[in-house]
């Protein structure tokens, strides 16, 4: 077996195992950490496909930022394991529908040869000096510039909406304004008064 194949099977096995554990472990924090492991292995598989930009960005964005905030929230939950299984049967139909759709899509992808995906030409081998990042950037800002800008706009709207939905002005909260603190002069705080000396 070629070394690359071995690495692929190693990454894939760990990834499938971790993904399974995400949905089977009881503790949400453990589940989130298994999700991190899944992302990490997915990045490894992308690296095998020579998509180093996507792989590293997956680690940077999902593992380095999104999952940190996820853990941040999950860790503060008051976990009651007995109550976690409540409502299992009422959620089952929705879950089953989602599962069947995903299964159907996966079957379509995996049965590519049957549907004639083989007819597609193989991608040409990368030349020397080929930079995945540079090529991706070129395509994003030329051919796909409108969809790309549109996606960024959607993200911006989502961001503003999230802030607008959760921002509440609490009444009665006290806070300091650093600019005001810095601008304080001696005369604002101290008043020198002259008075005659007093005897006991």
């Amino acid at each position, binding site marked *: 077996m070629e070394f690359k194949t071995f690495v692929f099977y190693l990454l894939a096995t760990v990834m499938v195992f971790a993904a399974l554990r995400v949905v089977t472990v009881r503790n949400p*924090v453990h589940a989130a*950490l298994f999700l*991190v492991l899944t992302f990490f292995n997915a990045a490894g598989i992308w690296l095998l496909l020579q998509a*180093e*930009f996507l792989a*590293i*960005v997956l*680690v*940077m964005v999902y*593992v*380095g*930022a999104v999952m*940190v*905030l996820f*853990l*941040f929230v999950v*860790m503060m939950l008051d976990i009651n394991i007995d109550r976690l299984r409540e409502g299992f049967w009422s959620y089952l139909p929705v879950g089953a529908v989602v599962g069947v759709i995903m299964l159907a899509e996966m079957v379509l992808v995996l049965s590519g040869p049957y549907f004639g995906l083989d007819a597609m030409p193989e991608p040409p081998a990368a030349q020397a000096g080929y*930079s*995945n*990042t540079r090529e991706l950037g070129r395509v994003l800002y030329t051919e796909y510039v409108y969809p790309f800008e549109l996606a960024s706009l959607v993200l911006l709207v989502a961001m503003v909406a999230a802030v607008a939905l959760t921002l509440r002005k609490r009444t009665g909260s006290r*806070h300091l304004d*650093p600019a005001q603190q810095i601008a304080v002069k001696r005369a604002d705080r101290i008043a020198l008064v002259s008075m005659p000396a007093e005897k006991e």
Partner: protein
Amino acid sequence: MEALLEPIASLFGAAWPAVWTLAKIVAIIAPLMIAVAYLTYFERKIIGYMQVRIGPNRVGPLGLLQPIADGVKLLLKEVLVPSATSKGLFILGPILAIAPSLAAWAVVPFWDGGVLADVDAGLLFILAITSLEVYGVIIAGWASNSKYPFLGTMRAAAQMVSYELAMGFALICVLMISASLNLSEIVRVQGQGQFADMGLGFLSWNWLPLFPMFVVYLISGIAETNRAPFDVVEGESEIVAGHMVEYSGMTFALFFLAEYANMWLVSILTAILFLGGWLSPVGFLPDGFHWLAIKTSMVVLMFLWARATFPRFRYDHIMRLGWKVFLPVTLFWVLVVAVWIMSPLSIWN
């Protein structure tokens, strides 16, 4: 070199590339560990001098064996695992703290061509690996199942994610003017330009055109490594030692090693990205690793200097600095640099 290695290579046969890479890893990690150990000594000495004290001077001549004694003590101490902790994660925490701070050294170029893995996406790799550093702290704090570690974890998660943004934008400026993500290439680009041709290399390094980014990167670097004055994660007077409260012996030492290895990493990256890496500051002196060593040591000295000088920030001030000052400044400067590159005044062609 190649001819000298030939007989050894034939000895190992097909396993030679793996053996050779392992040897190179050891050649990087072993000096790094010594540098980390002696950084603790220099920190105590230098802060001692700044505060008109003597610092450690009992173990060995001038106290030079102090780090060795500390290391031996930590190695021999019992590793306590409190019964209410989440056992596996409690041990995993310190491992995940030190692993990224060592892994990032794979792409650091020490001299022209002197790099373990000369990958094209080196800067991205550094960003991705350093963004993993927070996991050690988070997992340790949660697995400890105790109040102060958990508070430390919350602080660490928010602080490190916030300052990563400013740091990322500073790096985007660097990569825009270098037109490369390869760290060696970034250094080489700094050796070109008008000033470099005049023999005044230090004026063509990135720190001058990107001065605001240089300052932002340096300060964010201190915040990322949780060093004073940003050390609220382990603020002794508030939460004892943050995520490290429940740790002892070698598990504690791993957090400590990770912190100091990160200091070296941020310093060497500052030297590579903004201070010209291995390049000599003036034309008539040869380039070489010694320049990188000198520059890195200077930046580390800044870290210690800042620790001895400033009082600890209040937490809301840290957040304010990160989000309301650094983020707008860096975003604006990215725009300025982009316009600058496209304008006829561009100095990078």
